[in-house]
């Protein structure tokens, strides 16, 4: 009897999981369908770019400069052991471009904008604002999801680029002013070692992370249930799942683009 109960519970769990996965996939498919089905609402896209992109610049720049500064210090410690301090510039630049830029900027934007998007959509859901759109014969995917998707795809690579530039500058400040490296050595070797593929990798990663943030955060908001507690649960889940997926996808993309 206990075994049968266990199998039943396991079956129900698996079924729930598969249904959720199906709904998750369908959510993205429907959003992409609505990009092409009717004209895009450009004002709403611009509003979301302002929210996700513009209003994240300060937090991304701040984390970028400190990441670059600490990276320069740590790399100097390691490179100094091999007498390769002259490679500090390329070490900072490559680390920022290939790895830290896309990942940390994405995590910061998920925490700042992703959580807000989930909460906003979740509140719209529980206060029947999304139903109101539907009753007016206006599709919520066209009005809410499509602008968020486009805004994420546009904002993420731009924020990542800002993070990279500011981070490399942060590394420069520490290397030149604190560690005594010459500016020429820092920047000269960067142009020698950093290739276009490294910049492309950074941009590809950030676009994929932008898609992930939209997908998880909007999906969780759209499927919010049970009042204020439901919104809080959906927001927490969205940030946790999006952050984990970003780190997992980072490894997958690095393996592919290596």
């Amino acid at each position, binding site marked *: 009897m206990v075994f049968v109960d266990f199998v039943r519970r396991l079956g129900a769990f698996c079924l729930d999981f598969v249904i959720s996965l199906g709904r998750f996939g369908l959510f993205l498919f429907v959003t992409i369908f609505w990009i092409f089905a009717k004209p895009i609402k450009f004002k709403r896209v611009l509003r979301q770019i302002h929210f996700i992109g513009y209003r994240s610049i300060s937090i991304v720049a701040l984390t970028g400069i400190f990441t670059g500064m600490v990276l320069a210090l740590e790399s100097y410690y390691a490179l100094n052991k091999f007498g390769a301090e002259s490679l500090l510039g390329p070490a900072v630049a490559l680390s920022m471009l290939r790895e830290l830029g896309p990942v940390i900027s994405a995590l910061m934007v998920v925490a700042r904008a992703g959580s807000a998007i989930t909460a906003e959509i979740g509140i719209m859901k529980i*206060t*029947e*604002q999304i*139903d*109101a759109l*539907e*009753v*007016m*014969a*206006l599709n919520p995917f066209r009005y809410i999801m499509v602008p968020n998707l486009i805004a994420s795809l546009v904002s993420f690579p731009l924020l990542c680029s800002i993070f990279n530039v500011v981070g490399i500058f942060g590394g420069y400040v520490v290397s030149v002013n604190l560690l005594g490296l010459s500016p020429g050595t820092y920047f000269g070797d960067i142009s020698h070692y950093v290739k276009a593929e490294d910049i492309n990798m950074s941009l590809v990663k950030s676009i994929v992370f932008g898609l992930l943030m939209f997908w998880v955060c909007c999906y969780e908001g759209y499927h919010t249930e049970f009042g204020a507690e439901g919104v809080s649960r959906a927001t927490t889940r969205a940030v946790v799942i999006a952050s984990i997926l970003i780190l997992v996808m980072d490894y997958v993309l690095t393996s592919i683009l290596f």
Partner: protein
Amino acid sequence: MERRVKIEIRDIYKTLKGQKVLRGINLTILEGERVAIVGKSGTGKSVLLKHVVGLMKPDKGDILVDGESIVSAVGKRLESIREKFGYLFQGGALFDSYTVYDNVAFPLREKKKLKEEEIKEIVLKNLELVGLKGMEWKYPAELSGGQRKRAALARCMVLEPEIMLFDEPTTGLDPITTISIYNLMEETYNAKKFTEIVISHDIPGIFAFVDKVAVLNEGRIVFFGKPEDMEKTEDPFVKEFLGSGLALRGCK
């Protein structure tokens, strides 16, 4: 003159999270008719209303609006059926980030090709009708419960719907505001002559404003007829329900 059937609900069933909410609902509503749906909390009144407008799909059964099935309709057909409806949600469902003016203007901007001056004229006229003149630049959070419902009603009215659905329009409001909302509903009905479904707990207050009453109990319609015929029915639930409503009024 015989009125034609506007909404026909045919034997609909709905189970939500293992609970049978609707168990074979049948209801026919004629054009221009005003019907109140009453019943205990949690008996599926709002669920039924959401089925009528196609926000929920039944497990079994069909709902016809002007002879067209809203259950099987998708895409443009569903849109064209929904354009016949105005839906006053329990909490108003106004868009938080928009002002009252923008909320009321929203459906006009999205559904009609009108100039901004024409939109302004319609919005201000409707806000005046619901008694919210001068409040157009306030946000929903700055309004009282009654004002929010009035603004939501104005938003419903701008597209001149053929069918109005009211989900508990007076719940949580004080008696004076309740009367003003009823009067507003009466005025708009007299002006537009739409078909109306009202969900209400206000027994017998709502009876003065409707042609028929449907009593919902355990997912079934146990009474459907004129309010004055309710007292004649032998159904024990209807008797008890009406009795408690009247008793509550007596206490007041």
